[in-house]
C-alpha cells in the first residue's frame, strides 16, 4: 500500500496517489485544464514538499495531456495552428512573467496585489461563464427540439480584432483572426501563469471560448495540446535546475491520470458545449472560493517549506 519517494523523501499510500491522478486527469480530459491548481495543494496535504509537488505535477500533466490530446485529436478537436500561436505567445509570456515577478518581489508587498488580482479575475471569469452558459441553455431549451449545436457564437464583423493585420483563417475552429490575437493572448496568459506559478489552463480556456470565439470541444483539445508542450518544458527545467521532479510520484500519478483523461474525453463527448461550460464555471468559482477562504482563515500552522502556490 505504501511507496517511498526518492526525491520527496517521504512515503505515500499509492492507491491514494493514483486516485488523485484519476480525478485530476478526468478534469483535464473534460475541460482541457492541467489541474495543477488542485493537484499541488492535494499533494502538499499528503506530505509532499511544495516545490516537489508543483514540479512533479507538471511531469504528470505531460502524460495526462498527451493522453487527452491524442483522443481529442482523433475526434478532430485539436486546432494545431491556433495551439501553436498560443504556445509561442505563452513561451514569450512565461519568460517575461519571470522577469516581472522579480521586479514585483523586489518592490515588496506585491504578493498581496498579485493574489487579489488573480482572485478577482477568476471570480469574474467564473461568474461571467456561469451566467452566459445558463442563458444559452435556457435559449436552447426554448428552441425547437433538434436545435442542439452550440458551436461558437458568430464572430462579430468589424471591430478592433478585425482591423488588425495578418488575418488568417483557423479551419478547425472555424474562425478568422489576426495571428497577432492568439500571440498576444498567449503572452498575456503566460505572464499571469508565471506570476501565479500555475499552468494557466483556468484562464486560457475562457480566453479561447470568449475572446477567440472557438467552439467548446475544440477549446478543450487545443488547450490540452498547448498544456502538453508547456509542461514538457517545465518538467525538464525543474528536473535540470532544481532537482524537484520525483519520478516515482509522477509515475503513480500518471497511472491514474492517463486513464482519467480518457474517461474525461468520453464523458465530454456526451455533454453539450454549454453543459461543459457551466460545469467548468462552477469549478472555477469553487477554486475562487477556496483561495479566498485560504487567504482569510488563520492557517493551523504558520510555517511552511518554500515553494508551492
Amino acid at each position, binding site marked *: 500500500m505504501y511507496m*517511498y519517494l526518492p526525491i520527496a523523501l517521504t512515503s505515500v499510500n499509492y492507491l491514494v496517489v493514483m486516485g488523485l491522478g484519476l480525478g485530476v486527469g478526468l478534469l483535464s480530459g473534460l475541460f482541457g485544464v492541467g489541474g495543477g491548481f488542485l493537484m499541488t495543494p492535494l499533494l502538499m496535504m499528503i*506530505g509532499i514538499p511544495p516545490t516537489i509537488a508543483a514540479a512533479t505535477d507538471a511531469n504528470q500533466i505531460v502524460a495526462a495531456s498527451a493522453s487527452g490530446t*491524442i483522443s481529442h485529436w482523433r475526434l478532430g478537436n485539436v486546432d494545431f495552428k491556433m495551439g501553436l500561436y498560443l504556445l509561442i505567445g505563452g513561451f514569450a509570456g512565461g519568460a517575461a512573467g519571470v522577469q516581472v515577478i522579480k521586479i514585483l518581489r523586489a518592490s515588496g508587498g506585491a504578493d498581496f496585489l498579485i493574489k487579489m488580482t488573480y482572485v478577482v479575475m477568476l471570480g469574474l471569469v467564473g461568474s461571467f461563464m456561469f451566467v452566459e452558459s445558463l442563458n444559452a441553455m435556457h435559449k436552447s431549451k426554448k428552441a425547437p427540439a433538434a436545435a442542439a449545436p452550440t458551436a461558437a457564437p458568430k464572430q462579430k464583423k468589424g471591430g478592433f480584432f478585425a482591423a488588425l493585420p495578418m488575418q488568417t483563417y483557423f479551419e478547425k475552429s472555424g474562425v478568422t483572426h489576426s495571428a497577432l490575437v492568439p500571440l498576444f493572448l498567449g503572452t498575456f496568459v503566460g505572464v499571469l501563469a508565471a506570476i501565479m506559478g500555475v499552468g494557466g489552463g483556468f484562464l486560457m480556456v475562457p480566453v479561447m471560448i470568449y475572446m477567440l470565439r472557438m467552439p467548446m470541444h475544440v477549446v478543450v483539445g487545443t488547450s490540452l495540446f498547448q498544456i502538453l508542450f508547456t509542461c514538457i518544458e517545465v518538467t525538464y527545467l525543474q528536473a535540470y*535546475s532544481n532537482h524537484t521532479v520525483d519520478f516515482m510520484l509522477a509515475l503513480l500519478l500518471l497511472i491514474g491520470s492517463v486513464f482519467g483523461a480518457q474517461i474525461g474525453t468520453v464523458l465530454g463527448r456526451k455533454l453539450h458545449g454549454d453543459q461543459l461550460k457551466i460545469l467548468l464555471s462552477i469549478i472555477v468559482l469553487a477554486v475562487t472560493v477556496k483561495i479566498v477562504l485560504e487567504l*482569510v482563515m*488563520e492557517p493551523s*500552522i504558520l510555517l511552511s517549506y518554500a515553494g508551492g502556490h
Partner: protein
Amino acid sequence: MKRTLMNSPRYLAVAAFVLLGLAILPVPAAQALTCSVTPDNIPITFTYHGAQLSITGQSASTDDLVVTITSEPVDTALKYKEKVGGLVWMKKGSLEFKDAPRVYLLHSTADLSRILDAAELNKNLLGFDALRGHIRIEDSAGNPADGKWFDEYLKFKKQENVYDMQEGTVVRTHGEAGNTYKVDVAWPYQAPPGIYTVDVLAVRDGKVVDRASTHLEVKSTGMVAALSKMAFDQAGLYGIMAVVIALLAGLAVGAIFKKGGGSH
C-alpha cells in the same frame, strides 16, 4: 604467635590481593551504562514506511534514564505567514532556524521536570524547553525573531513526526541478566536519510551522572538510491527520462483506448 602471623609478608600479600580484587570487581550499585539499538541500520527501499527500533542496555538499578535520538544540528529556512492588511494570511518572508536538529525524539523513565532541574536540562539539551533556549531564530535581515515562532516550529516538526517527547516509556527490569532497560521507538519515515545519534543519560539526584551513546544509520538502497543519485548527478538525463516516459505512457494509453473502440 598471632601477632607474628599478621606481620608476616605472606599475610600482607594476601590482604593486598583481596583489596585489589575488590577494586577490580564490578560493584552492583554502580553498574556501567550501555546502549545499543536494533536495528542500527535502516535501509530505505520502495516499500519503506518507517521502522520499529528497540533501544536496550544495562544501567544502575536506581538511576532514571533519558534516551534521545537526534541528528546533527542544521540551519533550516522556513516561510512564515502573517496577516496582511488586517484581512488576509500570506507568506511574508522566511525565518532561519539555526542550530536545530532535523530529528529530536526523547524517551525517559519519568517526567523530565521531576528528575532534573532546568539548568541540567538546558545543559544537556533535554526536552523542548531546552531546545527553545538553544535554537536561534532569525529573520532574513539577521534580526532575532519573536519567541512565538519556536512554538510554530515545534508544531510544524511534530506534525512531521520528527520531534516527539514521550516521558515514562523507558522500562527497567531487574533480573538475572542484571539491571536492564528497554524502549521501543517508532522511527518516522519522514526523517531524512542520514546518521543519527542515540544517547542514553543516567540521572541520579537531579544530575546527569553517566552517558552512553551509539549510532543509527538510515540509508537509501537499490533503486531508491539510484534514482535520487541520478536526479542530482545526471539531472539533464533524468529530466528527459521523466518527460519521455510520461509522453509514452500518455500516448500508449491513448492508443489502447482507441483499440478498445470509441471511434466517432
